[in-house]
């Protein structure tokens, strides 16, 4: 269950906080710089850090899926979109200070509210907790109790693929 149980606690804590540092700095790089390519690289860093946090949360499978789907697929798709749409050569308008201040205020209010809710709530664990973290159980549940959701997700992905092809392809035909 705990992937890092063999490591000494101090080292495990250090590794945890280094992972958190990677995640937070990657998120900051993903939001603040004006160059869009730095944003994508920061997003990849943050997503890899979140995969590390999933390891600390005890799920090797979800960490692998995170690396595969997000870092491997979504970031590369965003890089492709950047290369196809050439935003680097376009004008970068000046940031309007009031808008930035309002956005900062809104997200700060959200952060303070949710963090205080998380800190003030008395979280009660379930009385009887199963310790079955195996991938076999996940597969079994996906094909029994959550089978309908699983199929609907596949359908959504199929529709999204076809829709993406149609949207990108038809606009090319119209404009050229």
């Amino acid at each position: 269950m705990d992937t890092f149980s063999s490591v000494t606690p101090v080292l495990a804590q250090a590794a945890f906080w280094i992972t958190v540092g990677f995640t937070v700095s990657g998120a900051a790089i993903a939001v603040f710089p004006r160059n869009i390519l730095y944003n994508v690289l920061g997003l990849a860093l943050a997503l890899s850090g979140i995969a590390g946090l999933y390891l600390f949360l005890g799920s090797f499978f979800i960490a692998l899926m995170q690396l595969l789907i997000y870092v491997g697929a979504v970031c590369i798709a965003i890089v492709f979109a950047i290369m196809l749409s050439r935003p680097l050569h376009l004008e970068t308008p000046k940031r309007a200070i009031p808008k930035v201040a309002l956005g900062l205020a809104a997200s700060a209010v959200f952060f303070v509210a949710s963090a205080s809710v998380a800190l003030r709530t008395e979280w009660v664990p379930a009385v009887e907790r199963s310790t079955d973290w195996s991938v076999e159980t996940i597969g079994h549940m996906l094909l029994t109790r959550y089978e309908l959701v699983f199929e609907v997700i596949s359908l959504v992905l199929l529709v999204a693929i076809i829709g993406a092809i149609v949207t990108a392809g038809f606009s090319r035909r119209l404009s050229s």
Partner: protein
Amino acid sequence: MNSLNTYLIISAFLFSLGLLGVLQRRNLIGMLISVELMLNAANLNFMAFNRFLTPDPVVGQIIALFVMGLAAAEAAIGLSIILALFRKMHSINIERAQKLKG
């Protein structure tokens, strides 16, 4: 390892960074990146609750998988819309996308 609150505060921080990005960026791809960040923060919350509170630790992982699938679909659709918009407007600044404005 660490307490539940650590993970909750990390994910709240990530979510508010993503919210800030959505509110202040005017580049459509930058906004999409911030939305991905917010989805990941929510996923981290699911996994933390799954680790510390739930009776059955499979359910949170399955929900995280579903969120990943939906995020992949959202990224594909969003990027193709951005490409179509770029071909029409020759810009991905959202303040240029105002053809319907009277």
